[in-house]
């Protein structure tokens, strides 16, 4: 029964050769290139990494990724959780869920157009055609804001577009986990006199912790790699640069392959620990199903 099947190699050979060429070889090569200059000719040691960790534009990108990390992750996960719990109580759950999940279907580029238009700005006195400014100028003393240019608002404006895209994803996973909590458990607590908030904090939240962790790590990985939204909406202008967009610029606009490679390596090193946690949790969940 347990004898080696020679045909197996024919089944896996295409996969292994393609993966070697498209993932294994490039990963090793990029590591190597990150120690060389822009044309990959002269060895320059850690100079590219020094650039990455000291230059102002890079520090700015790291700072923005950190802002993304905190705000994007917090809001997508908590809003997803709140929606999962609230929508369970209404009869139009399916419709509301569809509405919130739709943005997952469209591209980040398309979402970029949608949100650029929401944030559209005209000077005070003109007709506002962006809905955000149009709503806000109904309040007294409000001056229209150029959301994507203004340095205090632009990062948050981009992050909100990201949240709009990803909340549906968090909601669907968390909702499945929420519906999996045995009803007797919640009812028992209610009978014992716990109010809805206590039930949420003492039972729902602890029981859902593993799922929340999976969703949160998935969002963290998204943040580390965030590119499209920024590339399309601001291309990093006015202090909105992020690491992945910077890597693209170093590669394509400045043709500095050494620096671009170093940034890619940093991204990889940041992603690996999160990804390992995530794959493990994912496997645990699969095993439970």
């Amino acid at each position, binding site marked *: 029964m347990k004898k080696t*099947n020679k*045909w*197996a190699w024919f*089944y*896996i050979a*295409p*996969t*292994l050769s*393609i*993966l070697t060429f*498209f*993932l294994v*070889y*490039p990963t090793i090569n*990029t590591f190597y*290139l990150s120690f060389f200059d822009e044309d990959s000719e002269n060895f320059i040691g850690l100079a590219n990494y020094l650039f990455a960790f000291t230059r102002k534009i890079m520090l700015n990108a790291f700072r923005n990724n950190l802002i993304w990390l905190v705000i994007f992750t917090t809001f997508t996960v908590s*809003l997803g959780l709140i929606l999962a719990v*609230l929508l369970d*109580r*209404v009869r139009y759950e399916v419709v509301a869920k569809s*509405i919130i999940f*739709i*943005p997952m*279907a*469209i*591209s*980040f*580029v*398309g979402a*970029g*157009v*949608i949100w*650029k*238009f929401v944030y559209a700005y005209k000077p005070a006195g003109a*007709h506002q*055609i*962006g*809905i955000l400014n*149009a709503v806000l100028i109904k309040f007294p003393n409000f001056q229209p804001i150029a959301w994507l240019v203004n340095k205090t608002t632009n990062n948050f404006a981009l992050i909100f577009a990201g949240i*709009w895209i990803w909340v549906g*994803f968090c909601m*669907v996973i968390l909702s499945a986990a929420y519906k999996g909590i045995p009803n007797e458990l919640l009812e028992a607590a209610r009978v014992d006199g716990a109010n809805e908030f206590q039930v949420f904090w003492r039972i729902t939240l602890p029981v859902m912790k593993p799922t929340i962790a999976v969703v949160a790590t*998935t969002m963290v*990985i998204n943040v580390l*790699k965030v*590119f*499209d939204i920024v*590339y399309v909406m601001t291309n990093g202008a006015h202090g909105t640069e992020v690491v992945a967009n910077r*890597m*693209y610029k170093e*590669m*394509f606009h400045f043709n500095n392959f050494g620096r*671009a490679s170093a940034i*890619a*390596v940093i*991204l*990889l090193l940041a992603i690996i620990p999160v990804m*390992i946690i995530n*794959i493990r949790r*994912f496997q645990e969940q699969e095993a439970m199903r």
Partner: protein
Amino acid sequence: MKKKITKLLSRPLLHIVIVLISLVWLLPSVGLLITSFRVRNDVMSSGWWTVFQHPFEFTQYSLKNYTHVITANGMGQAFLNSLLITIPSTIIPIMIASFAAYAFARMEFPGRQVLFVIVVGLLVVPLQMTLIPILRVYNRLGLAGTFIGIWLAHTGYGLPFAVYLLRNFFGALPKDIFESAFLDGASHFTAFFRLALPLSVPALASLAIFQFLWVWNDLLVALIYLGGTERVAPLTVRLSSLINSLGQNWHLLTAAAFISMVLPLIIFFSLQRYFVRGILAGSIKG
């Protein structure tokens, strides 16, 4: 009694919160859709929501923006390119992955576990790590800017996840049906085509939808390996360059954006079950 009162009070609040959030999630897309049918002067001088003052005055809507972006701005060509890129980029990796997944799940050979762990481990590699070396090889081989180049690239990026998902699925199929098939003299080849694949249609459908959307909505891979040439650029690349060149021409930009979303939206509404499953399963893809 007291409980009932708080319940009565909180019920409307619950509906208000949900409806409000739903509106925030829906309105931006509605604005895009409406704007794409309005003429330039209207778009520039009044908000899209003003159409609700007289929604049935059909003279204010027109398809001109669409005909303009499809012909003059190359969105028609881009749509075609997106199809030409996405369909093979969905079929090829799933075909190749299902062979490997079957071997990993059902065949005995030395190094089976180790190789599978390595394949799954490749999920951690972000795309960015691979761009420069592959682009260099592509430039040498003349594959940069060609459809074949991007099909292969998407195949490479899609494989680890596809193998992972399908192996788990094949592995979970009941053992006895395979054993009785082998007793009847079936080879692995027949077992793969007659048993494993037909029994995995739901998993294959979810995977196909995920990979299709991933490729259709991809910007970075297309940007790197195809470049911005109109002849080969897909919708995402074309649209992102229109965002720069059309600037404040919202009537055209919104129409172009909607064209890029039509197909994913149709898939979303017609195959919602597989769609959701595919997205959820694919979330760990690097």
